[in-house]
């Protein structure tokens, strides 16, 4: 079925079930006949591949620009050190030092240098892998160990999404730059929470963030219990739509621990993800 829609799965709190929702949703979408793509933007700790077990077809590095000083041309004026907001370039004792990992790649030093002594080179921060898992297109990124800045890599993974598909973006946890980079410009966001004080506190923070970004959104409650109304009450109070609840079932947790899909361990749950897919389509078309 033809569709062109990007849905991100985010949470605030980690470990609420973003990857569980994303991979199961991708599988249900593909089985329903949609062209589906799974795009794992948690480049610090990508996990989707452990469940989808994709065949990787292509791997490429992602670079950020960093300055290179031509010492023959440098006049040691210090202008580069003054413009840099990140302490990534310093002029001391008539020589210029660069600290590549601090550099955000703004290009200010190169623009300001009066002697044209600064050029740029690419510095690798991680890589993207693309492939497919059955009918599902797959992409993820891995940030190199010790690398602080994930947003340029997240952008590269996002751009590996597919046209004319249902793209499911598995976002990193939190509420700051990495998740914002992962979800900016998507059509719809699913916020996954659990009915605990920690889960709901972080859902509140994620809702504040998402309102700031102005993206349509709704909530999925994971590890839900019929007797626990914390999440239901919270959604009612915040006037946010609750799409589906995934029960707190040890079979799902054990399947997850082995890297299996929820409905392969408990086929009854296939319906939960089918309902979720239908409600996302309905919400996203509004």
């Amino acid at each position: 079925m033809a569709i062109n829609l990007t849905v991100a799965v985010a949470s605030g709190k980690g470990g609420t079930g973003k990857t569980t929702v994303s991979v199961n949703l991708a599988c249900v979408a593909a089985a329903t006949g949609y062209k589906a793509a799974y795009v794992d933007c948690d480049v610090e700790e990508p996990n989707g591949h452990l469940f989808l077990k994709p065949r990787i077809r292509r791997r490429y590095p992602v670079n950020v620009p960093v300055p290179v000083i031509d010492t023959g041309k440098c006049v040691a004026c210090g202008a580069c050190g003054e413009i840099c907001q990140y302490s990534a370039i310093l002029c001391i004792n008539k020589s210029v030092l660069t600290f590549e990992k601090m550099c955000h790649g703004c290009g200010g030093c190169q623009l300001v240098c009066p002697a044209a002594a600064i050029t740029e080179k690419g510095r690798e921060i991680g890589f993207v892998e693309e492939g497919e898992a059955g009918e599902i297109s797959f992409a993820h990124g891995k940030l190199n160990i010790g690398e602080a800045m994930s947003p340029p890599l997240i952008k590269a993974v996002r751009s590996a999404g597919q046209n004319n598909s249902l793209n499911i973006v598995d976002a990193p946890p939190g509420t700051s730059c990495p998740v914002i980079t992962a979800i900016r410009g998507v059509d719809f966001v699913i916020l996954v929470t659990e009915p605990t004080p920690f889960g709901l506190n972080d859902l509140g923070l994620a809702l504040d963030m998402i309102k700031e970004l102005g993206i349509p959104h709704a909530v999925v409650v994971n590890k839900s219990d019929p007797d626990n109304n914390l999440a239901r009450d919270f959604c009612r109070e915040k006037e946010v739509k609750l799409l589906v609840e995934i029960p707190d079932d040890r079979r799902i947790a054990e399947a997850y621990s082995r890297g299996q899909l929820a409905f392969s361990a408990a086929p009854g749950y296939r319906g939960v993800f089918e309902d979720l897919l239908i409600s996302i389509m309905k919400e996203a078309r509004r």
Partner: protein
Amino acid sequence: MKEIVIVSGKGGTGKTSVAASLVALAESTVVADCDVDAADLHLVLKPQIKKTEDFTGGKSARIVPGKCNNCGKCHEICRFNAVIKDESKQPAYFIDHIACEGCGVCSYFCPEKAIDFEPSVNGQWFVSDTRYGSMVHARLGIAEENSGKLVSLVRSQARMLAEKDNLPYIIVDGPPGIGCPVISSITGADAVLIVTEPTVSGAHDLERVADLAGHFKIPTFLCVNKFDLNPETAKNIEEKAETRGITVVGRIRYDRAVTEAQIKGLPVVAFPDSNVAKDMRTIWENLERELN
């Protein structure tokens, strides 16, 4: 004084529950919540805030309407697509503050000097009292950057308090992942305690955060939470950790008491007869012995 940072790689493995219990068991500590963009420790330690300060992490650009002559230079040189063009407006350019990286290049090169570039408040940080001692915590503003800088600030304030009162421990509740705020949380610390879970994701993410701790040469300890969910995977994780020089300090059983304590707003060791409280005590005893 020893600074112990609790991390996990994967989110939701139980960092905050472990941190709260260790704080309660350690008795003489300063606690720092360094998960500044999704902080939860205050929900179980119930801090009374004594001091609130603004956090100024960087500068942000703003086009001054009366001065801009629509030359478009800023739009041309911004590498973060943070200068948005909208010809229906006057001026026709504005700064998208969410995309802005705070580099100041637009302001520097604006021929009309029409772009202000001033320090911006990105959040707040707090010093509080809890029934277990002082706590330093923070709140990053909505959709703000500079979480690494805020983490460094929280840690340095916690260190000052611990030094002032000559306390033996600082316990830091760290963020998930391996990026900027995690690096800021662990650099220079005395010990990293990794809390993981016996799942394929937990095992995978543990490797990456252990690589990070190894990269900074920080002594690393491990505990597997909810180990009885998959004892075989738990055992594999522990064996693998030990081969890379990580000391296993304990296992935590799956116990509903954890969620119940959270709902009551208490560390789980406040229920001393629960299985999980026993497990937490073992972890603290082992950790304390290893560190001294």
